[in-house]
């Protein structure tokens, strides 16, 4: 009979399924959120603010996957998968959802990379909040036409975005992680 060699710390089947189910949960929850985003964004005067107020929500799946799995790439894959699910469930952003998911995933992952993938706690999350706010904002400057906005508005938008990302992808993710650890079910 063939036997299994004690394998390297790669992606195990159960981690892949776990990550995917998390992503699907977020895809479904994003849809619930989508309603409030639409309500805000469909009011022309609020459109730019709606984007930056809610962006933190769309950035949660990645860091959460990261701190739960503590693996290189988990943040990126988690975020991209959540975007894929969102796109499949229907998103007005269509193919752009995937692109945004990728950009957001990379920018959140970078925070953990900066700690050398050693810190999956407050420091890693804080750095991840900073990198993702900066990079996604830069992306929007060049690719979503933010450069065309007046400077005063840009500063306001940046601050709103930092708060949104800090709360959802930072504090909220941290609180969820604490609860999961306390439940004792995360023995991986």
């Amino acid at each position, binding site marked *: *009979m*063939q*036997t*299994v060699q004690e394998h390297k710390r790669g992606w195990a089947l159960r981690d892949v399924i776990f990550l995917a189910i998390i992503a699907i949960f977020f895809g479904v929850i994003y849809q619930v959120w989508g309603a409030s985003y639409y309500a805000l964004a469909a009011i022309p005067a609020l459109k730019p603010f709606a984007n930056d107020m809610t962006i933190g929500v769309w950035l949660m799946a990645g860091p959460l996957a990261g701190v739960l799995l503590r693996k290189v790439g988990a943040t990126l894959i988690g975020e991209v998968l959540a975007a894929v699910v969102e796109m499949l469930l229907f998103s007005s952003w269509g193919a752009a959802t995937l692109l945004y998911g990728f950009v957001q995933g990379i920018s959140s992952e970078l925070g953990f990379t900066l700690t050398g993938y050693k810190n999956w706690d407050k420091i890693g999350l804080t750095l991840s909040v900073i990198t993702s706010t900066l990079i996604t904002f830069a992306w929007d400057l060049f690719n979503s036409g933010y450069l065309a906005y007046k400077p005063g508005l840009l500063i306001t938008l940046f601050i709103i975005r930092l708060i949104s990302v800090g709360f959802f992808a930072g504090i909220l993710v941290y609180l969820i992680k604490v*609860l999961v650890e*306390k*439940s*004792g*079910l995360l*023995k991986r």
Partner: protein
Amino acid sequence: MTTLAVKNFSFAYDTGQRNILNNISFSPVAGSFNLLIGPSGSGKSTLLKAMAGLMPKFGGIVTGGQILLDGQDIQPVAPFERAKRVAMLFQNPDRQFAMRTAPEQIAFALENIQLPAEQIQDRVADVMTRLNLTAFAEQDLMTLSGGEKQRVALATILAMDSDIILLDEPFANVDPQARQTLLHDLQALQQTQGKTIVISDHDLSGYAELVDNLYVLEATTGTLQSASLTRLTNLAPVVPFTGHPNPAGDLGWRQLHVSVGERTLLTGTTFTVPSQQIGLISGSNGIGKSTLFKALTKQIAATGTITWAEQDARKIKAKAWAKRVALIFQTATDQFVTMTVAEELALSQRQTAYPDFWTAERVADAVAQLNLTGVMDHIVYQLSGGQQKKLQTLVMLIMGQPVLLLDEPLAGLDQDSVQAVMTLLQSTVHATQQAILMISHQRQGLADFIDYELVFAEQQLRLVGGATHA
């Protein structure tokens, strides 16, 4: 013929914790039918998973001995090599399938064991026919009933042609009819194909004719003992519950019609749920019992009228409705909203509709009655399945909604726990005048507690032994 031998095997879930399994030796005879019993939490699932080679890969540590498959340590054997020899069927029929339909699932398993491509289709067709599954070939597995899902799981094992079949409480969510059919299927496999069968179960009915050996796993010592087969024949007979419901109650429905998708589950029934009584709803898998409860708790839409004290339920908001009619879920962990047993109880005590009744003493008594005193500061998610089930029922009972709908509250409980839960429910509803309606496939030991029974069949609810009340 494959041999599987458990040799002086000991196992714990964490370093420094006690051995769940203690020095167990067990070698099922080839071609025999073995039943494994033991109280909830004694380690039956753990032992079976270890015998399937899934432990410690999926948790825990081996603290002594070993398990040999054809004389070789089972754990490092590649899964596809194991699956050809030992296969396992799990308690929860809902999450055993990777694919969407039965033929896809069976083919998936056959690809795993590297059966040549040209043989796969024939093998799939063959087992589909043998287990009478051809009618379900196109159907989404998710929409099959519990019993049907277990048949598909059995078909998958059969297709892989494993010699040894391990089944972990495969009937916990299966109705008596489907249970008989599955037991019959198993017997046929054992007798005509010489399969070795090891099965764990709480419900001993229907085994007397089948079983060659009976084993008991002791909860306190973690040891395995062989027991006399007479335990399987001296069972109390199961009787229909012919009592009558009281006429008065708050929750009622008229001409209720429930359907999912295209399919009608219930047409035009009328009933009032009587206060101070415990009613049982029985009926085969997939008939629509759980769906009826979802309609009554307003989680899905239904046509006809649901009423609360003659008032139309549509006029009552979801939040207010949740204060009147409560659902106790089939999956216990879905019910919990805090972290520890004590916190769960404290939350319910804060929110209870009967603060005078649920005094600290009474709660403590109930906790003792359910044998939960020792786990007050445990995390709810780390309790055994049986403990979770009991805690879930208790916290909802304390909440005190006037109508409690319990979906399989006794699944997986041992007889002592069943008695304790039912006694508590009965004494509480007598004092508080709450109404309880419960779905249960398990009927053993319920004779003293059930006030009336509604049978769900052919899209109707019929009162047992009664007039056309329902």
